[in-house]
Each structure stands twice: as C-alpha cells, then as structure tokens.
C-alpha cells in the first residue's frame, strides 16, 4: 500500500451523473492489479470526513483511471477536481481478481460497478485468453466503455429500461454462453442480487468458478478499522471467518461468501 499525491489529468462527465477521472500516480499505477481499488481523499477538512473507495478502471504506466457515479456528497465533491489539482490517494488496495486458466472468461458488470472488469479484460487479453464482456446498463449510458476494451473481445449489453425485447438484465445474456466444454471463469462486479442470480444460473453447469467484488462501506480502506467485515466460509475450516473487504477482498470467490446479514 502506498500513499501518493496524484495529479488530476482529466475529470470529465461521460454520462448522466457518471464521470471519468484520470490521475497521474506512477507508483500506485505500476503496482495495480485488476479488482484493486484506491482510497481518495476529498480534501475536505471535517465534512465529509472519510475518503472514498473507487475501483481502478485501468492502470497503464503512470496513469490510473476511475469511473465514478454521483450518489451523494462525496462523489459530488469529486466532480470539482480540476486538471492540475493534486489529490491524496492510498493504493493499490485490497486483493483483486485471480486470473485463472480457463477455456473462456465471462466478465459480468452491472452499472459503474463494471469498472474493474475493464482493467481485467486488458490483462486477460494480454495473455491471449478468450474474453466475453457482459455489461448491464439502464439505457446505454455506459456504452463508451466498449472503447476502453482491448480488441478481440465479444461484447454484450443489456438495457434495463429498454422498450425493445432485448435483454433487460445482464444475467439474461448469460445462459447461452454456459454450454461449453472446459472451464468457465466468471468475474462479476455489481450488486449482490446479481451474484446470486449468476450463481443460480450456473448451478447445473459443469466446470465453472465465480469471483465477485463485494461492496462494503469503508472507514480506513487499509485493514485497521474492521468496518468492512465480510463473512466467509473456507473449507476445511468449519466455522465461518470474518475478514476485511479492504484487505482480504474486495474480490472473493462467491461460494465462500456468506450473506446472512454480514
């Protein structure tokens, strides 16, 4: 984990309430792995108090990018970052995706949550792996993400508010792609309901694994406050363990995550 004064290079509106932030942060960028996140100081003194966790959309040489959506005061303050500003960033944080050897890699993202899958797609394609990218949107507002993907990827989109008979949920797109020999690795970023649905759909299929990014409110982001507890069951241990989304996650294997209230 590093602390770096990152230089804002871009902070642009790219969709309704959605912004693209580009930072020069060479030390963090060079160490970042897909699925990891950064913890951004808002520069405010007392209010809001905490940093804001944001997934790494991509990292290339000295540059880190982030895709964020305005949901409250903190993200609204982020929209005021201007090129040339320096912002205080902790990162890269957490444990990202494990890049598996598989026949095919299915990346499923819901909304801006899809961000870390872009980074992942780049890494997988660099290894020549077969990648299919599934993006769930309200109504096309994230289609620009396609341009950030490397070539040689099959891209599919669902549109929740679509009037046409297309797929509404990203999970509606999934079934045909599961009839496959060999191993299927699924990498998922979105709400927990989406993960449950994915697991249900995969249930009868053969050899597959599901990795998911778990969203928790974070205090420190670095493992000290224990605010981001996730309950996991990891055989051979009988009893569930409480681990930290910010250190042992945010990426977990779905079957080990226990969602009974934690």
């Amino acid at each position: 984990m590093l602390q770096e004064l990152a230089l804002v290079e871009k902070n642009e509106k790219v969709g309704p309430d959605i912004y693209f932030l580009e930072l020069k942060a060479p030390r963090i960028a060079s160490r970042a792995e897909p699925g990891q996140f950064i913890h951004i100081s808002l520069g405010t003194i007392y209010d809001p108090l905490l940093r804001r966790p944001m997934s790494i959309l991509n990292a290339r040489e000295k540059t880190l990018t982030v895709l964020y959506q305005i949901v409250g005061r903190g993200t609204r303050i982020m929209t005021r970052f201007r090129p040339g500003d320096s912002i205080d960033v902790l990162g890269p944080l957490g444990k990202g995706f494990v890049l598996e050897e598989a026949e095919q890699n299915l990346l499923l993202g819901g909304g801006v949550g899809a961000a870390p899958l872009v980074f992942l797609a780049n890494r997988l394609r660099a290894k020549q792996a077969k990648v299919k990218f599934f993006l769930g949107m309200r109504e096309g507002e994230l289609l620009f993400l396609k341009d950030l993907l490397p070539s040689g990827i099959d891209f599919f989109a669902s549109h929740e508010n679509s009037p046409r008979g297309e797929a509404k949920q990203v999970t509606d797109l999934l079934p045909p792609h599961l009839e496959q020999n060999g191993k299927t690795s699924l990498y998922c970023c979105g709400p927990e309901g989406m993960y449950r649905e994915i697991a249900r759909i995969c249930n009868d299929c053969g050899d597959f694994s599901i990795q998911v990014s778990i969203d928790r409110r974070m205090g420190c982001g670095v493992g000290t406050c224990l605010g981001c507890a996730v309950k996991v069951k990891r055989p051979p241990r009988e009893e569930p363990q409480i681990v930290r989304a910010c250190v042992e996650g945010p990426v977990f294997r779905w079957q080990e995550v226990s969602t009974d209230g934690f």
Partner: protein
Amino acid sequence: MASKLKTRIGSLEMNNPLLTASGTYGNGREYSSIIDLNCWGALVTKGLTLEPRAGNSGVRIVETPAGILNSIGLQNPGIEYFLREEVPFLEELEVPVIANIAGRRIRDYEELARRLDPISAVAALEVNVSCPNVREGGLAFGTNPDLVFEITSRLRKITAKPLIIKLTPNVASVGAIAVQAEKAGADAVSLINTLMGMEIDIERQKPMLGNIVGGLSGPAVKPVALRMVYQVFRQIKIPIIGMGGITKGEDAVAFLLAGARAVALGTVNFVNPQAPVEIKEYIGQYMQRHNFSNVEEMVGLAHQERED
C-alpha cells in the same frame, strides 16, 4: 527538539505524547508501508478479549456530520492468537506498545492481565471499561464507579505494568469515575471512548448500523472530549491521555493545555495517515514559539487564572 517532546505515563517513557487510539490502527502493521511507526510515542492495540470475537453484523461504519459512528463490536482474534501471531511483530518495534483489553466479566479482565503481564513487548495495559458496542460488560462497567474501582484494584494486584483505565463519556460525571480509578491504583486514565449515537436509514426505515447504536468519534466530539479532560484534570493527579476528534496540531495542543499529558489519534488515521507526523511537528513549533522546554510545562495550562 526531539527530546523536548518526551513524556511519560507511570513508568512508561515515550518519545512524544502521541498515541494511536485503540481500534483505529490495527497493530500498526498496515500503516508501516507509508509511515515510520517510530513517529508515535506509543501504539495502542485493537481491543483484545479472551476469546475470539466476530464482532457485529450488518453495516459497521456510518459517516455523520464531522464524525463517524462505528459498531465494530470488538472483533478480534482473541488473546491466544495475539500472543502467538502478533507479539512477534510487536517485539520487533522500537516504539512501545500498549495492549487494550476488554471483557464481559471482571475475571476476563483479570485473566487477560495475567496473560499479558509477562509479555515484554507489552509496555502497559489500557483497560477498556467503556465499549458501547457490546451487550454485556463494556459500557455497563464504565458507568459504575464502584465497578471501575473493583476492576482497577484487582488488575493492580496482577500487574506492575502501567495501568490505564479508559473511560466512557456516556455519564453525567466522568470525574467521579476517574477518581475511583485513581484511588484503586491506576497509573492514568484515557478520555474519551466514543459517545453513543445512531443514524437511521429513512428509506428503509431502519437503523443504519447492524447493531442499531454505535460509537461516535471524530471532530464532532472534540468539544465534549476536551471538556471532560479539562474537568477531570481538576479531580485527579494521575496523568490523562486525551482523545476524541483530534485531527491537527492545534487540537493536540488544546488537549495538552486542558490537562492531558499525552493524546491519542483515532479517526483521523483513516483520513490522513500522516497526521502524527504533522501534529508532532506542529507541537514542536508551538513549544518553540511559546518557549516551552518540555511537554509537561504545557499540561493543564489552560486552568491558570490569568488576566489579559
């Protein structure tokens, strides 16, 4: 300049008056890649219990105006694990380590003290009689002066290490409780643990925190913490470790002037991990500007009656 900042709590000598607040710094390991842990006067561990604890379920941290609410519920891997896995790391540190302990029953505290007493990597014990986030024990002890006396005097018999009693602000008179800790042989008191609070998710019409209530910390509580340090300073002679909402050098100095001999930084670590470095530097400059040659000279100075 460095030596001007030295201070002590009982027999515990510290290079400067800055401590980590229990539960906000792990055992230091996580921050060691971005800060020299020796910048602290002492590290205080996350609260330890006899048995491992899973802590509370549901949301555990909520932001509030200039503060946070937490309901971690004393999640920790238990004393066993601490002795086996953490102590070796702590032994390598130059900076002294204070173990923070909590229990459900008085004999839990006694057992913890017995186990920690022989550990040389543990320089002192901070006794949390004030955790608002666990049902049994915790806060119930801390609001009762007799129980605080009882726990303190029992622990006093078990260990010669400096004993620091950490008090809750959720009482009408924290002074009355501090006095009992002093009488029973405590070497210092820590003020304050978190104020009990809650937030409600109005769309779901439910409390935000899984545990319903949580502990309020951060700048919002600073005026309350400072007032308690000031009041308790008039009632006891043993040192006070002041904490609650310190984020900058000026805050730390205010606590010293109010009567704290050392101060702890909690919530600020989540926001600005360089805070101890910045605050230490500020205190040094402040002392220079006001011609103080050691920290002790500043302690309680705001109590002087002066005309100006």
